[in-house]
């Protein structure tokens, strides 16, 4: 089979990319999804707060997904479920499923939308046995919300990212006792609103600069030991506190799933752990585009949809025009800006406006976000507060860039007063 665009992943990014591809007049599209339904991780995120930007109302995760699934069905975009892509190459995809076996198809353009997975216990080096009762927070979320299991009665949560906070509330509502949420860093990686509505509402303590240094129990978790950490993030002797619990949830970061991207020789950024892309969201391998959490981990699904719509549009353009020579320049991230997406832009063939998203390295108050064209300061915006948990953006204008025809790089950085 030959397709114009094949989209790997049927979560929020894949769905929005498919809808956008179709709306941009590409007809021969296929979505490939490994699970048994479309919607991806949204289906287990049953809390509300999704869609304020996209639909101007607050939806739950499954409702947000259903809006896009409905569009995909109305636009008659074909999709395969229970189908795993096992190889991606330049203009070719190999997938496997129960009914067709192993199949290789051709695609003029490929959109990577595989999302991310959770960082597991094994990546943390916490001593102790391997008893049951240790769950990545998102896995516990799926077990409770979709499969209807109870995961534990007395719970400690390590990591204060949004999934950890949301699960603290969810477990409490289901009758479990959440003893404490511990965070290694001196600040929470989660949204303020989640700290208030998920922890403060239920008097769940949040211990910053703390980590789990021991897990007790052989068959089932029976307790953990928490210790304070110093500025070097190493435990401080004498600060150990024992907590009795039967469950430990880990909300310690998300990793973009780029095994397939690597097979297609796509260059991966060591900071985002996602592909390096240009302003068309095209990767270093021609005809392969990326969007959503496989590209960089987002905090709002609305931004995923927006980014994926761009990937769908640009992939459609690519299918129509074929590859053209693009002269991209680098967008540097400096002084407190950890990374940018995209990392490159072609000032000549870019769209009129380009949204560049980025994250900062630490919590900063009263800093400026500055944009430089080579060494010339172009824009300076004061920010009351910047936090690693909240993605930021700047917008680059083509007409502004056109005034600097010899530009060799753009730099985005924070500056103090």
């Amino acid at each position, binding site marked *: 089979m030959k397709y114009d665009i094949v989209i790997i992943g049927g979560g929020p990014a894949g769905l929005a990319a498919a809808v956008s591809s179709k709306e941009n007049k590409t007809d021969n599209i296929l979505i490939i999804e490994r699970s048994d339904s479309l919607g991806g991780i949204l289906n287990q995120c049953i809390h509300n707060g999704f869609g304020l930007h996209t639909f101007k109302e607050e939806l739950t995760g499954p409702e947000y997904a259903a809006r896009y699934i409905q569009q995909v069905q109305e636009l008659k975009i074909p999709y395969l479920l229970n189908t795993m892509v096992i190889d991606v190459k330049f203009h070719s995809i190999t997938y496997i499923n129960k009914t067709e076996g192993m199949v290789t198809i051709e695609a003029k353009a490929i959109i990577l939308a595989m999302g991310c997975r959770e960082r597991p216990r094994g990546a943390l080096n916490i001593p102790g046995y391997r008893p049951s009762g240790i769950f990545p927070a998102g896995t516990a979320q799926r077990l409770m919300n979709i499969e209807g299991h109870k995961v534990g009665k007395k719970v400690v949560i390590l990591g204060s990212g949004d999934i950890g906070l949301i699960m603290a509330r969810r477990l409490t*509502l289901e009758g479990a006792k959440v003893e404490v949420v511990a965070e290694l860093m001196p600040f929470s990686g989660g949204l303020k609103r989640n700290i208030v509505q998920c922890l403060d509402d239920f008097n769940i303590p949040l211990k910053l600069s703390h980590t789990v240094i021991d897990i007790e129990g052989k068959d089932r978790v029976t307790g953990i030991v928490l210790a304070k950490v110093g500025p070097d993030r190493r435990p401080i002797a004498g600060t150990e506190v024992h907590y009795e619990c039967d469950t430990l949830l880990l909300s310690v970061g998300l990793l973009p799933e780029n095994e397939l991207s690597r097979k297609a020789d796509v260059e991966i950024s060591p900071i985002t752990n996602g592909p390096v892309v240009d302003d068309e969201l095209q990767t270093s391998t021609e005809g392969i585009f990326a969007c959503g959490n496989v590209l960089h981990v987002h905090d709002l699904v609305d931004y995923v949809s927006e980014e994926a719509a761009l990937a769908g549009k640009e992939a459609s353009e690519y299918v129509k025009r074929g590859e053209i020579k693009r002269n991209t320049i680098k967008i540097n991230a400096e002084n407190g800006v950890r990374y940018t997406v995209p990392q490159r832009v072609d000032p000549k063939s870019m769209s009129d406006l380009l949204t560049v998203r980025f994250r900062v390295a630490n919590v900063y108050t009263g800093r400026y976000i500055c944009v430089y064209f080579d060494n010339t300061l172009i824009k300076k915006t004061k920010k009351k507060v910047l936090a690693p948990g909240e993605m930021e953006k700047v917008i680059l204008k083509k007409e502004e860039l056109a005034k600097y025809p010899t530009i060799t790089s753009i730099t985005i950085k924070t500056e103090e007063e």
Partner: protein
Amino acid sequence: MSTKELTCIGCPMGCQLTVDFDDKNNMVKSVTGNNCKIGERYAQKELTNPTRIVTSSIKVDGGDLAMVSVKTESDIPKGKIFEIMKEIHETKAIAPIKIGDVMIENVAGTNVNIVATRNIKNIAAKGIKTA
């Protein structure tokens, strides 16, 4: 009069508010620690009439999934959360279910319905008998 501590959720700044509260008249007297007006409005609402949307999931009979996710159709008084959860735990739904279907009417006397937030297909239609 009493003094209350709150974290404003109006923006990422998360100002730590100290509020002088007139318990007798259920009124905010003064707010300090905020950097803008949002803090004052938040303190007023949060101390006189705090509300929340409750989301959860309900067991399903005969569906393609074991659970259907649900929410309160609009926000409810914060103090009612656990009463609402009790009713949710006592409820069982029967497939098929469409987004927006009412699962519990007037939950915990709040005049707010619990509605489904996910579509659930009926697997009995494929010849699997349900109890």
